[in-house]
């Protein structure tokens, strides 16, 4: 059926509706739905035709003549897709607004149909004046639709909109008529042939008017009022469909304007993207926030349109991906917002009782943030690479900055949804659910389509076809199952995957694979202790593990980045599940996304120098040379270090790890942190030493690592919260590992690997045991515990072994790490950072002793006299870890020897010698078996002696202590635990001022203050908005054309 029928059906049904009896409301509604269905069907039919056959666009001539004498419409693959999007949005919104439409009657329905028709018209038409007419129709229709809302304030919002629209139409008309005067045609293609330079001012007027329809920042106050007050069904159209149509109109105008107008589009776009996102930060009203987000997204797409000169034909892939993701997600969110009774963001917490709706929300937020596997992700990747390839790093930086802001408020919102309390009930009728889930399905389908497109166009990878991700996503389908079943499936899947693939890894990756898969499976054993269905846990956890295993399996930059994002998102959901984790999860995702964006920028920059873009083998990083290479290094290194929580970007870690659930903490600490280390491994393996401004970057890394180790350890000793203590300890341990890597020699790397293995084992073990204690005692404050050794002996043993291992005291495996460390720094010529690391070493004793003493030793408290040992499933993995630790302590060779050989290809010099049980380096030697035997023998002999001479010792109770001849008052006042290292704080407390927290706090504070100041310009007065608009035009004119 001809595309003209879209218009015809729209107009015709509107007329029919107009002729209906006022009371035939249901009939009218049926007609409306039918009309919209037909319009959608036509669009869909054309889309299928074009997509299947790759046919050329078809021009439809009206009035029987060719342009310029008559209006012509064009239907192509893009047009069909857009009209389908618009009409489907319309249809779904109509379903969604069913009650409101029926209540308001046929006029409202007619206006809706007209609006959709006009939007399709904008997409289809190739005539500039026709464009104007459709625009005016939309203005009128919008004016009508706004009144659908129950919100009284919508009326004033609509009026403001009309005021500004009047100005826009004046500009547009004047522009059109002068453009016509100059070219003698109204046909867009005709005008394009002549070029806009002949009628620059006229074109400027048209262009700026159309852009104004996109509600560019800061001339957009009027539009936000509409978003906030109108019916969410209409807001969905206003955001998704109107935005789409107008963007396409801009695209058409850019045909006329040509390359010299691209910068205008880019400039307006990027200012809008950043500005609107910034202003969205302080919003508390959900719909207004969505409005800002819509504006920001259109701004981003406008930017992409403006970058056509470098994007070439890819701009459709990028802009399309962004546009579709935005439209689907935004429409979905608006529809979803109707289910929430109150308008504060926090009121969305009501949704959390409905897992499906939460899933929908997650899908939409992920789409908006451009997370894999949604279209925005592929688009973002392409865009970044294209921008970097042309050296437009400033633009890329702005885009990423804006995207980070957007992620900030969206994830904060998601945090509210999951973590806040709401006493409102969500009532979700079928008509409200259908559109939302249609959008969800559309989102996933689009993700698949864009994945396929990325394969065919760029040779990227369709993430939705990768096995680990599919495995993770499949847990969504079995969410109804009990937790133990899902846990078994998860463990089985991970082990099976390892068995299937272990032969494919080189020794280095094998270690990571073992930790990620087998290690992950062991930590999952602890999850058997959870009851119920544990909705949301397994998809998130499996997503994280999928990301991690994809990370080490991939060889190209795209796969790496995609995996990185997946594991970030998965771990975010996991962390968010913790009790008080809302702010910490937010800072985690922000730092992680910030880091991910740096990685993206780094890859993009690298790709610009190592073809083939847009994805390249990671090994090719080695081919990078001077001007680019150090920057790539810096970007990637900083990106990875946000994950290893290097000092400065560490502030997310303590809260995130401490607040996470008992079995999640070991995952995110013991396993997830290794992803960052793996990234650094890959980076350094490929790029080695780089210099920037004469600074050896690995030296800078050494400094950062040493400071991280020192300050992480120092901060750990002042924690009262056991899990926080462990979290800070992780920061310190990661400092050691990064230090080893940055040493850039054989033993340094071996040490880093040793830390990878050790840290996984003992940190997972310690987190489990402390988590188990916290679970039993109901608190994480260590000073509230004490004396639990007899009640929780197994947890105590795990902790004891753990702290001996962490501190590096022989004979346990921590010593191996220290031994390799000393041998490694012997060959390094950088000495000052080592001094810092030396200081960090003994400090570990302080917090480790505090951990075990204040929890297990000292005085048992009244209320914990009856606590039981931690649940079996939490103790079991700990015991496995104890065994592993012992084995690894005595036979480090089983893991290290192969890696040692493997590292020879990078650093032929300075490996270890393995003769029998003895391990030798160029400087020293170490015989773990002998050490273990000697120490055990000495210890055993002395113990036997003591047991002989002291065989009659009377076991006494906790208050049988010499208390200066007094009696202890209560266990609480006798247990010395709070502010345990007070003298240390007096001496060195100044080192642990929370400078990084203050720094980031100031930055976010400044952003919020700035946004709040900017908000004051949005006075709510329609005239002010009109004035903003005129000012915007003038400024744009001044910048573009000059006075």
């Amino acid at each position: 059926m001809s595309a003209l029928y879209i218009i015809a059906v729209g107009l015709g049904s509107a007329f029919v509706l107009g002729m209906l009896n006022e009371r035939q409301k249901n009939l009218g509604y049926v007609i409306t739905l039918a009309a919209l269905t037909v319009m959608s069907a036509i669009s869909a039919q054309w889309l299928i035709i074009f997509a299947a056959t790759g046919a050329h666009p078809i021009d439809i001539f009206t009035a029987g003549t060719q342009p310029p004498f008559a209006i012509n419409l064009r239907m192509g693959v893009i047009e069909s897709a857009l009209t389908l999007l618009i009409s489907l949005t319309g249809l779904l919104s109509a379903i969604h607004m069913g009650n409101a439409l029926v209540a308001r009657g046929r006029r409202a329905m007619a206006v809706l149909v007209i609006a959709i028709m006009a939007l399709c018209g904008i997409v289809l038409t190739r005539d500039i004046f026709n464009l104007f007419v459709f625009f005016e129709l939309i203005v009128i229709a919008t004016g009508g639709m706004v009144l659908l809302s129950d919100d009284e304030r919508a009326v004033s919002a609509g009026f403001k909109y009309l005021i500004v629209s009047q100005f826009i139409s004046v500009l547009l008309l004047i522009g059109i008529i002068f453009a016509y005067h100059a070219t003698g045609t109204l046909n867009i293609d005709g005008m394009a042939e002549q070029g806009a330079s002949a009628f620059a001012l006229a074109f400027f007027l048209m262009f700026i008017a159309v852009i104004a329809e996109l509600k560019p920042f800061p001339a957009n106050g009027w539009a936000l009022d509409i978003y906030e007050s109108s019916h969410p069904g209409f807001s969905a159209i206003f955001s998704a469909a109107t935005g789409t149509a107008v963007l396409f109109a801009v695209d058409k105008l850019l045909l006329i304007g040509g390359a010299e107008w691209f910068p205008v589009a880019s400039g307006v776009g990027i200012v809008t993207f950043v500005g609107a996102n910034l202003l969205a930060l302080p919003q508390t009203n959900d719909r207004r926030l969505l409005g800002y987000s819509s504006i920001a997204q259109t701004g981003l797409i406008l930017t992409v349109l403006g970058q056509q000169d470098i994007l070439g034909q890819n701009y459709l892939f990028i802009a399309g991906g962004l546009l579709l993701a935005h439209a689907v997600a935004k429409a979905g969110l608006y529809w979803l917002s109707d289910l929430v009774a109150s308008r504060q963001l926090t009121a969305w917490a009501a949704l959390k009782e409905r897992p499906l709706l939460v899933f929908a929300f997650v899908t939409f937020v992920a789409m908006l943030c451009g997370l894999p596997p949604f279209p925005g992700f592929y688009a973002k990747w392409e865009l970044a690479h294209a921008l970097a390839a042309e050296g437009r790093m400033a633009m890329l930086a702005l885009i990423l900055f804006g995207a980070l802001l957007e992620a900030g408020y969206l994830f904060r919102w998601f945090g509210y949804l999951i973590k806040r309390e709401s006493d409102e009930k969500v009532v979700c009728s079928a008509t409200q659910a259908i559109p939302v889930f249609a959008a969800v399905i559309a989102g996933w389908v689009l993700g698949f389509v864009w994945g396929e497109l990325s394969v065919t166009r760029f040779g990227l990878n369709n993430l939705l076809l990768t096995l680990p991700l599919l495995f993770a996503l499949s847990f969504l389908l079995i969410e109804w199952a009990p937790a133990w079943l899902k846990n078994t499936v998860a463990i089985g899947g991970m082990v099976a995957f390892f068995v299937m693939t272990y032969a494919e890894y080189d020794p280095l990756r094998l270690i990571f694979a073992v930790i990620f898969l087998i290690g992950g499976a062991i930590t999952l054993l602890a999850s058997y202790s959870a009851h119920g269905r544990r909705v949301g846990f397994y998809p998130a956890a499996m997503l994280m593990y999928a990301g991690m295993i994809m990370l080490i399996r991939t060889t190209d930059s795209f796969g790496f980045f995609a995996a990185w994002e997946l594991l970030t998102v998965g771990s975010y959901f996991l962390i968010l599940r913790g009790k008080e984790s809302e702010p910490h999860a937010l800072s985690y995702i922000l730092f992680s996304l910030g880091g991910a964006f740096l990685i993206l920028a780094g890859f993009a920059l690298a790709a610009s120098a190592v073809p083939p873009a847009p994805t390249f083998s990671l090994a090719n990083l080695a081919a990078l040379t001077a001007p680019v290479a150090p920057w790539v290094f810096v970007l990637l290194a900083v990106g990875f270090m946000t994950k290893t929580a290097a000092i400065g970007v560490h502030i997310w870690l303590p809260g995130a790890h401490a607040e996470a659930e008992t079995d999640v903490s070991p995952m995110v600490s013991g396993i997830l942190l290794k992803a960052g280390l793996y990234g650094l491994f890959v980076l350094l393996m490929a790029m080695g030493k780089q210099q920037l401004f004469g600074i050896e970057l690995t030296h800078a890394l050494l400094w950062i690592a040493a400071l991280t180790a020192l300050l992480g350890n120092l901060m750990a000793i002042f924690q009262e919260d056991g899990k926080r203590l462990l979290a800070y300890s992780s920061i310190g341990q990661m400092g050691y590992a990064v230090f080893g890597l940055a040493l850039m020699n054989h033993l340094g790397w071996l040490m880093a690997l040793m830390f990878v293995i050790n840290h996984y084992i003992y940190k997972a073990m310690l987190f489990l045991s402390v988590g188990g204690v916290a679970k039993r005692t109901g608190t994480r404050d260590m000073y509230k515990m004490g004396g639990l050794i007899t009640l929780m002996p197994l947890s105590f043993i795990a902790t004891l072994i753990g702290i001996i291992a962490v501190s590096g005291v022989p004979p346990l495996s921590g010593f191996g790490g220290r031994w390799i460390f000393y041998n490694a720094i012997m060959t390094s010529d950088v000495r000052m950072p080592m001094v810092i690391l030396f200081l960090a070493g003994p400090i570990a004793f302080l917090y480790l002793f505090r951990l075990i003493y204040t929890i297990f030793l000292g005085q048992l408290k009244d209320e914990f006299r009856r606590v039981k040992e931690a649940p079996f499933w939490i103790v079991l993995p700990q015991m496995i870890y104890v065994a592993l630790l012992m084995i690894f302590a005595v036979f480090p060779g089983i893991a290290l020897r192969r890696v040692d050989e493997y590292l020879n290809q990078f650093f032929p010099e300075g490996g270890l010698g393995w003769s029998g049980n003895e391990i030798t380096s160029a400087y020293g030697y170490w015989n773990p078996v002998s050490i273990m035997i000697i120490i055990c023998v000495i210890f055993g002999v002395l113990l036997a002696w003591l047991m002989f001479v002291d065989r009659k010792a009377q076991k006494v109770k906790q208050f049988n202590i010499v208390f200066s001849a007094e009696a202890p008052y209560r266990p609480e006042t006798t247990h010395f635990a709070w502010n345990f290292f007070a003298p240390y704080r007096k001496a060195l407390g100044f080192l642990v001022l929370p400078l990084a927290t203050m720094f980031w706090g100031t930055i976010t504070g400044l952003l919020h203050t700035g946004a709040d100041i900017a908000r004051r310009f949005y006075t709510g007065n329609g005239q002010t908005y009109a004035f903003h608009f005129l000012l915007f035009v003038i400024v744009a004119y001044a910048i573009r054309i000059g006075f």
Partner: protein
Amino acid sequence: MSFDWMKIPYSLLTLFIVVNYGFLLNALIQKIGARVGRRHGIPIWQNYVDMIKNYGLRSSITHGVMFYLGPVFRLSGGVGLLLFVPTIYGSYMFSNLSFAGDLILALYFVFFGTLGMALGAGESGHPHAAIGITRGLSQMTAAELPFGLAVFSVALQYQTLSVTEIVAAQQGGILNWTLFTNPLAVTAAMLGFLGSMMRPPFDVVLAPQEIPIGPPTEYHSSYLALMQTNRAIFPVAKIVIYMNLFFGGADDWLTFCFKVFLIYLWSAFVGVVFPRFRVEQSIRWFLVWAVPLGVLSIVVV
């Protein structure tokens, strides 16, 4: 693995000599301290008597497993530290069990006893024990730092981590000692040494008048006897490391006794002259006076 079983009696011989020397040395140093105060001081065999008495006590109590194991850890730490380092340079008999590891092993094994003791004292549930441990650990972090730096400086200087090789490099005249070839490192280490000997001005850990008497508050009878034995072994074992690293090691037991005595005397000498620091004062003292020397020694070596 072929193990040289003769190592065992030889090591026990070393242990025997060092224990006795340690007992006598402790008493001697105590007597020297007493003479500074113009007292007669304890009999030279007093430490033996005390130890026998403590073993001879008939009753004892225990607060739990870790409390029981604490002294065992402590003494194992001392014995192990002694045996992991060759005592007499060039002697097969008295190279002890140093085949198991190098300098790093010795450095980290120092903490074995400390940690075990801290755990044992911790289980006694006595707040003074915990306070003493926080003080001890806090001070240790600062006091070990200059020593660690000096050790690293020496290792860099001789390009080895093997104690035997370090001693070997210092042979051939007093001027080959690290004391003269790397005076900065030695100075730093000897300042750090003061902090690890539990003598004034760094004895706030025990502080008998204030938190009687810190970690061992609850220990008595045979536990205390074990700890006394360690008191005899541990300083000597530690001094052996200093001697080997900085003062040319010892070729025979006579040199050994003499050097150990002199090094021990250094801490006693400072101890009788200076009053006591608070913990944060001693931390600052080490960071201000000793650590910069250590850093300097690493930079210039």
